[in-house]
């Protein structure tokens, strides 16, 4: 039944939609960096949207299937092949018994998601199978995958794959503008600083990872240097350390911080953050909280209607 990792790629972990209810113990949500792509991959093979899938980063994994299995790839295109046949993104496909799925480098986007029908069979820790690499728990032994790992899979009887409507993925395709609302410490920053943030491009530092997206560009400075009393950090918060180079905190983020938060990525755009690559440029656009919530609801409706009935 299981799937064997022949080559783990650059950084591959088991993820789901994250772990909730434990940030007060210092435990970050973890889960897929691009949650929308993980949901779509699961729905394509017929799983519930929160089942454990594989997240691959920049360079994909090579997996050997002991038995036939329906799978789907979403997110960044990693040029996947089974033998010599290309595997298309956003489609449920069958990997035959003994088949080898080879995922390559991603030319655009940063993360690919592989869902298998039934899902990977790893134990839930604190209600989630997401890998917490810093805490070393969840997923497979709390770590990134390595060559030779065996991934057990759950029974896939009575699960039916489904297809996306033609062009459905266009609605969530990548773009280089990420929308934000003003953050918890917005009053610390002058109007000119917000103008700077919303008019200047920022590039993604190669120091970025699942804990945070480090940005390089125009320095953002608070009106005065005062000390913030450490508080909890929401997912997607943009905090400004002393050097003025903002950091967007991400799925494996520290749960508390002492830097002012100027802005916060809207939940409907978090999947874009998960697909930004080192050295790419990004721009930030302001929306209101009400607009952000409307966009999130719109995205949810889109997902409900994206599949062929």
């Amino acid at each position, binding site marked *: 039944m299981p799937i064997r990792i022949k080559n783990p790629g650059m950084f591959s972990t088991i993820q789901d939609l994250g772990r909730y209810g*434990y940030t*007060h113990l*210092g*435990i970050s949500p973890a889960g897929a960096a691009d949650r929308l792509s993980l949901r779509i991959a699961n729905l394509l093979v017929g799983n519930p949207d929160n089942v454990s899938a594989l997240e691959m980063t920049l360079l994909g994994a090579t997996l050997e299937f002991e038995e036939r299995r329906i799978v789907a790839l979403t997110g960044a295109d990693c040029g996947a092949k089974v033998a010599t046949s290309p595997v298309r993104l956003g489609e449920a496909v069958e990997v035959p018994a003994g088949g080898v799925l080879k995922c390559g480098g991603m030319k655009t986007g940063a993360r690919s998601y592989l869902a298998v029908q039934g899902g990977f069979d790893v134990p839930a820790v604190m209600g989630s199978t997401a890998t917490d690499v810093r805490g070393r728990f969840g997923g497979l032994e709390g770590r990134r995958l390595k060559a030779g790992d065996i991934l057990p899979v759950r029974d896939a009887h009575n699960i039916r794959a489904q297809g996306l409507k033609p062009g459905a993925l266009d609605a969530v395709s990548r773009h280089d503008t990420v929308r934000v609302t003003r953050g918890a410490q917005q009053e610390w920053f002058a109007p000119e600083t917000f103008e700077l943030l919303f008019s200047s491009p920022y590039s993604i530092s190669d120091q970025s990872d699942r804990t945070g997206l480090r940005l390089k560009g125009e320095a953002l400075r608070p009106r005065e240097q005062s000390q913030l009393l450490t*508080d*909890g950090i929401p997912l997607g918060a943009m905090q400004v350390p002393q050097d003025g180079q903002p950091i967007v905190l991400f799925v494996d983020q520290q749960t508390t911080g002492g830097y002012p938060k100027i802005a*916060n990525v809207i939940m409907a755009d978090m999947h874009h953050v998960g697909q930004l690559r080192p050295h790419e440029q990004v721009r930030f656009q302001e929306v209101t909280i009400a607009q952000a919530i409307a966009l*999130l609801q719109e995205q949810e409706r889109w997902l409900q209607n994206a599949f062929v009935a």
Partner: protein
Amino acid sequence: MKVIPASDSALLLVLGDAISPELHARVIGLFQALRGRHDPRIRNLHPGYTSLLVDFDARQISHEELSAIVEHAVSAEGTQPERQPNLVRVPVCYDPEFGPDLVDLASHAQIPPEEVIHIHTSATYLVYFLGFSPGFAYMGGLPEKLHMPRLATPRGHVAGGTVGIAGSQTGIYPVDSAGGWRLIGRTPWRMFDSGAEPPTRLQPGDQVQFSAIDRATFTAMAQS
């Protein structure tokens, strides 16, 4: 109390602007009141020094509705903790191997190293919040004599269980990690266990005392 929209899915409730055990007791009271509701739409509640972050599923509940729940919790249940805080006595071995900065701290404070241990084990500390890594408790109440800034350059590796000091705070590294705190000892306790419920030894609002143990006791406790 100020209710600040921190994101489209989070409210930051700010109860004051100065660190004090009394204000923090109100933060914990509100934390416990909201937690006690077991509302599945509320995903995370995170106390800070003077604030509580409420993270919620914006697809299921609006900011207004959540604000109303918070206001109700404040007025109906008050913001006093519903129970006495736990007092947790943490055993610590202050052996120089475990506490490589103990001597520096002693000379910084101009007292003998034994006096550092005596002062550190005499105080009662308050867990203000957990953060940095799973189970890392930020504790206030460190006697002023032991205050010392963090290391200028953090260490690349600090063993799990190591007890440190940073400014006016003391804390325990629950798992191996990098760290810039002044290291003075180590507990044989496992401070974070992902399989336990709750997974951390310390919770926000707990009170903590340290008791000194010798190397043999440390070894025996670490093995059991």
